Structure formats: C-alpha cells, structure tokens
C-alpha cells in the first residue's frame, strides 16, 4: 500500500529532522546543566523539562500562537523569507523536537553527570582544550545515556500527535504521520488499516531501539 509507504517515509523524515534540530542544542544544554552551577539553573532545568509535563495539545497551542503568521516567529519568518510554517512537515518536525527535547536532555545530562569529573580535569591538566576534552573524554564516556536519550527522543518524535496535529494539521500526503494516520483510520472505522500502520510504528520503534542496543553492547572496553 503506497499510502502506508508514503506515511512511513514522512514520519521518518519528520522524526529525523526533529532529531537533527534538537541534537546539538540538546547535548549542549545537557552538558551545561550537568557541569555548571549558575543562577537560574533550576529555572532552566524546569523550562527544558516543561514539554514533558505539559499536555501535548497545550504545547501545540503555544507553538500555534508562535508560528502562525500572527505570532512573533511566524510573522518574522513570513516577512523576511515568505515562509508559512503552519501545515507543513517542518512544523511537524518542530513540534516533535519540542516534545521530545526533555527526553534527550535529561538522559544526556545524567550521562554527562556520571562521567567522573576527575578524568576531565586530568585531560585538561595534560593540555587538552575544553573542546578536545569534551569530544575525547566526556562524550565517549557518556555515550550510553546519550544514545538512550537519542533513541527515546526519536521514538517520541515519531509518535508525536497532539502538538503536531495543531501546527501541522492532519493532511494526508503532506503532514499525516503514522500516528495521525492511525487515528484517522480508527475514526473512519478502517481498523485493519489502522492496525497495519500501528504495526509499522512498532517495527520502526523496535528497529531503532534494537540498533541502539547492538551499538551499546558491542565491544566497549578500550
């Protein structure tokens, strides 16, 4: 069924895009929250975790107000680039990345916090600059938690529904991801089709998780 294939590819596209958008800022924030003490740290921590505790549709409404042509971001993008974000797969990706962000940051943050600071200090004392320390000490030692966070946020992004629905609409062929497609088919009483799409969702999540397990349980002692 080409319908299903199209929907799967769209969902993967949205999921990967949302991951790409959140990866660098997410890891950066995770490291800052793990390693630095500063005023407002608790506030930042709370803000980062907010999408996790808010109902997705509330986040979606906030994004709608921001990204619509009336909103601050939407009107600026429209004025400068002629972009209209609502009802596009990019909006879906943004919604997904916002919803999945806390999962990435929290997992990575714990992972960075677990890296013995002493090792980083030693590397630094031996002459490595901060970036070198990050890439050769912190990141590799934290990779379990980071991979876990990446897979978790990717899977969350794949299944994102409430926020995506509001800013991207549910447009078959354009923004109807697997999650929205399942919902639509349940609504029309097409249960076999809905189950088929659900099976694909399970397969995708399974594949992502299994791949990460293989990577993490590979030879790790160096």
């Amino acid at each position, binding site marked *: 069924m080409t319908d299903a294939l199209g929907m799967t590819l769209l969902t993967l596209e949205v999921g990967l895009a949302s991951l790409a958008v959140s990866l660098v800022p997410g890891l950066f924030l995770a490291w800052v929250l793990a390693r630095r003490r500063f005023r407002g740290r608790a506030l930042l921590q709370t803000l980062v975790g907010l999408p996790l505790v808010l109902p997705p549709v509330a986040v979606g*409404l906030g994004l709608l107000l921001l990204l*619509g042509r*009336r909103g601050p971001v*939407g009107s600026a993008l429209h004025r400068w680039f002629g972009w209209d974000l*609502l009802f596009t797969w990019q909006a879906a990706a943004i919604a997904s990345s916002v919803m999945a962000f806390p999962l990435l940051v929290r997992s990575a943050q714990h992972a960075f916090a677990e890296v013995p600071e002493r090792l980083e200090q030693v590397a630094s004392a031996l002459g490595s600059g901060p970036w070198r320390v990050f890439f050769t000490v912190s990141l590799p030692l934290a990779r379990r938690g980071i991979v876990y966070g990446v897979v978790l946020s990717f899977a969350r992004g794949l299944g994102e529904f409430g926020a995506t*629905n509001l800013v991207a*609409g549910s447009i078959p*062929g354009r923004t109807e991801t697997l999650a929205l497609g399942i919902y639509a088919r349940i609504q*029309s009483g097409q249960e076999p089709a809905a189950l088929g799409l659900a099976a694909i969702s399970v397969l995708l999540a399974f594949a992502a998780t299994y791949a990460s397990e293989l990577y993490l349980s590979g030879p790790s002692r160096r």
Partner: protein
Amino acid sequence: MTSGPSPRAVDRRAPVEKAPNPKPVGATAPSHGPVLVSGASSLREVLTALAARYEESHAGVSVTLNFGPSNVLARQIVELAPVDLFVSADGASMDAVEKQGRVLPGTRVDLLSNSLVVVVPSDAADPVRSWNDLASSRIRRIAVCDASVPIGGYARTWLASKGLLARLSGRMVRPDDARATLAMVESGSVDAGFVYKTDARAARRSRVAFEIPSGETPGIIYPAAVMARGPNPGGGKSFLDFATTSHGIRLFSGAGFVVLENPPPKTTRGGP
C-alpha cells in the same frame, strides 16, 4: 461556473493573487491553483469523496484536505493557517473565525444538517428506547463529548433540557469527538453514547437506540465559508460552489446528511 453571476462578483472583490478567473469545467488548463479545505472530522469520508470528484472534473487542480475538531480548525484559521475553505460542525466555530475577520464576506452558507442519535453496543442486554431509559441504573457509563466540541454541546444541551445532565454527569466519560464516542460504544466500554446519525451509519458493533427529534436540539448546522486570508479564496469558492451542485448533494445525502436549501452565496454586502 455553477451559480451564475455571484462567483465573479466575489472574485472581483477578493484579492485573488494566485488564482485566475475560474474557467468552465472541462478546460484543459487547471482552472485555479491548489485548494486547502479544513473540514470537521464528521465530514471526513464525504469531503474526501467530494474532493476526488472535484479533481476529476477540474483537471490539474489539487484539493488538500485537513480534518480535525471544529474548534481546533477554527483556532488554526485564526492564527492564519493557509486554509481556503472551512466547513465546520457548528456555528460557534465559524462565528469565532468570522469575528476575527477570516471569512470572505458573503460566502458563509449553512451547508448541511445532521441529527443526534444515542447508540448502544449491539449486544446490549436491555434496550434503551427513549430518554427516560438513559437515567436508569443499567446505564453505568455514558459517553458524551465535552461541550467545547460541537456534538458535546448539542448532546449536553439536550440532556439539560430533559433534566438529565446533572443526574448523568457522574456517569459520563468524555471522548474527544463523535468518532471516538462511537469507538467507545463499539468496544463496549460504555453503555451508551451520543453520536451523529451520519457516524452511526459506519457502526458495526453498535446500533442506534433512538434518534433525538430535530425539534428537541438546537439546529445542528454545518456552515461553510471561504477564508479571506487563505492563499486561494477563488479556488475555495469554486469548491464550495461544487459542493452545492448535484454532485455534492448526492454525496452528502448518500452519507446521511441533510442538505439544506442552498441559497446562492450572498453578494449583498459591499460593492463590486
């Protein structure tokens, strides 16, 4: 086009940047650019079929459909989502959109009507035959959507008029919309639920217990209007006109909707 001079009068008033004047059906070039229609969830199948028919008779034109609860669709439109035509399941959502200046003047019509029915699982032991039965103890759980959703509003108003709203509120479950309600009833997780008559036609493991007479509910009206701030109001108008032709009427009636008398789009407001 289908309804005489009115569309052209509207086109002249509306700044239609991308859509050229609609050509007669059957012309070789696409008569207008792509159209995006936001429709209430209960119109999913019928609008999909209508869009397919429209694309068949208007070569090269693509109709994109966006479905959801009417209040969500209205919210998107208010935030300037690129919608050309909005078909809502209640007047309130259309009013909200109109109040924000999104409606192209003169294009709002009351397109369809529907009926409210109470459905029960097919294997329900004791039949529910009328509204009195709803209050009985064998109805332990009843699915009624929230008042913010059109069907929830209609159902609750009717229940209140029968003095049942307060009595049943402790037994109510709130699904997201009519389709979710139907799914709940079909799965047997509730003993009864309020859905549209048109939704009940898709029922397999549930049946209609009774229909609420149209006189007892506020009119269930599906208004449709062209959106002024959409990218292609001309195309939206063209699709709306198509919906009121015999093609549209046949599809809507076939799905169980009551097609309201189709007044020609009002062009009385403003000048040319």
